[in-house]
């Protein structure tokens, strides 16, 4: 009986301590290994890579502090890709909470490029290469309204500049001038872009989502409504891998560095599930029941 108790009644504090250790150690001693890029991420990478020169990429930042570790590396990797390929970027949020995180990503990645830029042409300049449109509630207004006119929906950008005075906004008037929209979200917004913007205006949509919500987004990828899909920390690490190998951008890969923690945590959970089930099977057998 003791062995059964040992297997089925492990103190939860022991589980917490082991989990804490395996998650923390790889963060203290970070290392980024290469990962295998799966088709959904490869599709998204190619979709962004193939945005025509005259068209823009819209990035919808809809993640919050809770899901920041999973989705922020996606935002950084996509911005690095877009800025390296000189793809025009429009950034926006459908909610107020992600605004600070969006600004953080835009400013940091633009700085990375500007620190090594030799000329003004090489630099990433606000208003010419990217615009942060900010937040316009409720979500339905920008999703549908940008199909007709972006400057009508966002009369001012996030910093208070009139959008019709920005050089980039003179080239990008509505969805007809947008090659792809990528929704980085911890909720339903990627579906809304498909349901309203894609169905009505035909815009291409890609998505970066949390691992926990992944299963409900796969039907959209299979039908081609999503041009590509990035799922969780692994998806972000795959995109970082693509950006490093294809574009030779060598920077700190936060998602890839977090993968060992994720791996060990999953292995620990699997081991505990196996231990729990072993105890369960033994207890059923000793009681004479069918396991």
């Amino acid at each position, binding site marked *: 009986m003791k062995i059964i108790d040992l297997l089925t009644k492990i103190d939860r504090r022991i589980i*917490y301590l082991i*989990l804490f250790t395996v998650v923390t150690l790889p963060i203290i001693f970070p290392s980024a*290994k290469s990962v*295998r890029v799966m088709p959904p991420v490869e599709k998204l990478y190619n979709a962004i890579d193939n945005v025509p020169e005259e068209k823009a990429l819209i990035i919808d930042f809809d993640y919050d*502090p809770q899901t920041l570790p999973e989705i922020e590396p996606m935002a950084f990797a996509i911005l690095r890709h877009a800025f390296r390929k000189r793809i025009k970027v429009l950034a926006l949020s459908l909610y107020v909470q992600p605004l600070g995180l969006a600004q953080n990503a835009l400013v940091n990645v633009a700085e990375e490029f500007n620190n090594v830029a030799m000329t003004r042409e090489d630099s990433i300049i606000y208003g010419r290469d990217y615009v942060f449109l900010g937040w316009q509630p409720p979500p339905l207004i920008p999703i549908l*309204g940008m199909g*007709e006119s972006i400057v009508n929906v966002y009369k001012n950008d996030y910093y208070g500049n009139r959008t019709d005075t920005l050089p980039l906004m003179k080239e990008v008037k509505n969805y007809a001038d947008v090659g792809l929209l990528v929704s980085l979200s911890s909720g339903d917004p990627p579906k809304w872009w498909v349901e309203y913007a894609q169905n009505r205006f035909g815009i291409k949509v890609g998505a970066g989502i949390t691992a926990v919500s992944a299963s409900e987004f796969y039907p959209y990828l299979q039908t081609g409504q999503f041009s590509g899909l990035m799922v969780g920390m692994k998806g972000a690490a795959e995109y970082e891998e693509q950006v490093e190998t294809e574009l030779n951008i060598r920077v700190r890969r936060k998602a890839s560095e977090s993968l060992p923690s994720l791996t060990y945590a999953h292995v620990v*959970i699997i081991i*505990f599930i196996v231990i729990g*089930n072993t105890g369960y099977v033994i207890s059923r057998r000793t009681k004479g029941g069918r396991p």
Partner: protein
Amino acid sequence: MKRNFPLLLVFVFGILGIIPFILPHPMVQNTDEFLRNNLLKILAAFALILGLGSLLRVHFDKIRRKGQNWEYSWVLIGTFVVTSIIGLFGGVSGTGILPTRLGSFAFDIWTIYFNIEVPLGAAMFALLSFFMASAAYRAFRARSTEATLLLASAFVVMLGVLPLGNEISPHLPSFAQWIMDVPNVAGQRGILFGVALGMLATALKIILGIERSWLGGGGE
């Protein structure tokens, strides 16, 4: 009148919301654009005030009744007032009319956001992993054939999406991807169709005034 007028409004605006998806006529599209870009924005502003007012009323009521954990309502009201004052008068980054700065320390909205909301939000979500690990150990049992199948596919997906899966076997990530692409999509699509049909039926019932529970009053 008290009940019929809201019903009429829902019918008219419900129909006006559907028509632009069917008729591309400029008159219809312009009306739709006007409604969205003007009327909807005004409504959203009122809804925000209504929501905030309702939130405060609920918490003041709770304090008055000394409901369960009523002390926390003071925390909510206090932080609501402080954040609102800083946001309204201090500006997003300390550029408003109120001097929200103590020496070199700025306590503007960004300070609150990056130093309180971001770490608190991340900490709350991080705690989940510990509860999930403990719950998985206690509850995830192969009690039946279905539960065993679920357990096996969970292991495959968990290992397959990690770099470790590729090291165990290069086929494991492909198998995990197949589980997500085929059986998962089949199930999800069924759910999606069901939800879509349900939403359509509910929307029609509300627009046509058959479903009236949203009016309140227990459907009387």
